[in-house]
């Protein structure tokens, strides 16, 4: 676990954001939160190593749409998807677009840390 690792948490639900922020900080990560994908896209640049923790279902732009928007910009940060209702189609699309993992809410700490670490390792190796 590296102190420099940053998790970009993008979720429209304030309660989820606050809970996960508190959890990830307790687990030793830096956390940057965005309440919409647009807010994330507006960020100047990402620190390294970083990993995105991205909610799938959001009102104006979904997690999958953000993923492809980043891809279109030529950016390919590691992404861990979070979904309240995991279905096969979403998982397949996210993974084939390069997501590290798709996790379902509520997520267990171990599974979350494991997925984030894989993403961070990928980011470091770039």
């Amino acid at each position: 676990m590296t102190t420099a690792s940053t998790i970009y948490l993008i979720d429209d639900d304030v309660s989820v954001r606050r809970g996960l922020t508190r959890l990830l900080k307790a687990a030793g990560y830096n956390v940057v939160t965005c309440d919409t994908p647009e807010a994330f896209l507006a960020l100047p640049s990402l620190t390294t190593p970083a990993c995105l923790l991205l909610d799938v279902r959001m009102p104006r732009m979904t997690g999958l749409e953000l993923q492809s928007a980043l891809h279109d910009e030529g950016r390919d940060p590691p992404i861990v998807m979070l979904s309240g209702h995991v279905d096969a189609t979403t998982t397949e699309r996210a993974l084939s677009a390069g997501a590290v993992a798709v996790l379902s809410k509520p997520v267990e700490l171990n599974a979350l840390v494991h997925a984030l670490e894989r993403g961070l390792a990928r980011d470091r190796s770039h």
Partner: protein
Amino acid sequence: MINGRSHTLRALALTLVVAAGYYLGAQIGLALTFTPATTSVLWPPNAILTAALLMTPPRLWWVCLAAALPAHILLEIGAGFSAALSALLFVTNCSEALLAVIAVRALSDAPGRFDSFRRVAAFIGGAGLLAPIVSSFADAAVVMLLRHEAYWDVWRVRVFANVLTELSVAPAIILGWRAARRLLTHGPRARWLAEAIAFGGSVMALAILVFGRPSLRETVPGTLPTPIVLLFPVFGWAAMRFGVGGISAALLGSAFVASYEAASGQRPFATLTPVDSLIAVQMILAVVAMPLMCIAGLLDERRLATARLAAKLHFEELLSAISASFLRFPDDAVALRTALGEVSKFCGAEYVALLQLEGDAGDLAAESVWYGPGVVNLSAASFLRRFPYAMTRLRSGETVAWKGADMIPPDAVEDRRSFDEFHFRIMVILPFVAGHSVRGALALATTRERRVSASDLPQLRLIADVIANARTRRQAELDAQRSRQELAHLARRASLGELASALAHQLNQPLAGILAHAQASQLLIAAGAPAGPDVRDSLADIIQDCRRARDVIQRVRDMVAPSNPQLTILDLNEIVRDVATLLASDTLIRRVTLSLEFDGDASPVHGDRVLLQQAVLNVIVNAIDAVTERPLRDRVVLVRTGSFGHDHVQIRVRDHGTGLPPGSEAQVFDPFFSTKSTGLGMGLGIARSIVESHGGAIELFNNPTGVVVTINLPAVEVVA
């Protein structure tokens, strides 16, 4: 030529019968002649000839006339008539018969039949009046010239002797011949026979009383000298019950007695000469008989119309019985057998088979057979094999109708052999044609002789069409129902899938928050940090998320059960009835019997009609699902309502399924619990929440022989 020989035989038989009849009639006529007069007072031969001509086609008339000639000559020469007189009288006699037949054929739509006013009137006019009157001019001339008798006296005697015989003998022979044939083929009807004997006896007894010797009359006190009117009620009886033939027979009987007695010197009218007295009697009889014969014709016409209407009704009943059997019996095979049985009953066919063919080769796809008594078991499959020629014709869309083995082509050896082996008399095969291919056929066969007319075939065709249509319609209905059900189920699954997805998202958000907060707090505490503001905030957030989750659930519940139910006083029986109506097509298609038993008294409850209907519906649908895969006799769901004192009312739903897996009783009301592969596990859960919101209770009793669900609801005291 198969028919050549039978034609010759028939002509020969005709010759013999006509000769014998003419001879016998002339014998009677000669016996009833007032010597020394030439002309008989009752002369049946001409009328016998008329009857023969009416019953034969014109090309055979010469046979009848030729047959009568030797009998005529033989008798008249024997009676001392000269050859010339005998020959000339034969010509006048034949001219009478020919004139009668030509006139009747011109006037009547069916010469030789007496079953309508027109036919009877044509006969009376042509044969009864015109022919005797006209031919008597010639006859009287012959007798006047050769025997020097007074022209008008001869004419008078001959006219009445012949009017009466034409009216009495010709219909009596024609109708008697038909009645005898019917008696032979159908056997006697005891009551009809008894009445006919009583009638014949009455005619003869009265005729003897009326025309017989005065000494006989004197033994019956209070009788008039000539009580001729006594005969009229018997004539009326004939008209009402025996038709024209009965009147003719009565006329013949009484005329014979009258003539016989007159010839032996009796005079019904004492003031007249014997001949005039007899003519008076003949006139009275003829004049009374003519309108009565017309009435009898009218009555027959009515009877025929009624019978035709009855036959039509009977046929329509058959058609509706066929259709109904497909509606009434859910089992296709039972419905079909019932329908074929009805057809058999209607047509008098002992063998009725439905063949369903498929493919270009016309392979048998399905079959159903109805056997009458005494028919060799012949399955539809072997029918196909045993009648290869008939099948070939059937496959090309032709109708096969064989009335006897003679009609089967000689090279169709197997068909001929089978036809004889099964003792078939008539066999008809009607194809069902759809588009350009023969889809099947209705095959009928009888083993007894039966009259078949050309009009039977279209009727049979209609029957075949109705059966084919009923089957097609039923198949289409089943298909439509099945796809409708599948659609409905898919739709339900889709909307519930969406609901589940929405629900998952709504609940997982607060749960995700709660878990994250709790685990964060755990990490903080494990790291030895004091219970600082972070943990306090986390707990506050957890509580907040729990409330949020509770609200989500409340919203779902509100969605299923509206928070503002329309509470009214309801009749529980009516709710059950409404639900049964809603499920009617479902139970019909799944062949489940929904048996309803209502408490005699109305069972009032306080509640929301739609919600309670929903609860009852869910429970009953569950029960129906439980028995759908069961054998037909177990596809029964019993719904019973009852009230228990003033306390509560109950709906009890019992199915004849196999019960639930042991141990699963407690879970059945849980949402998303289901023992069915396609079940959604919502039905009983929703039912329970509705029942409980009405202050009631729902209970389930599990047995290996089925499940019983009871819904108890608080009773309402209705103040009248």
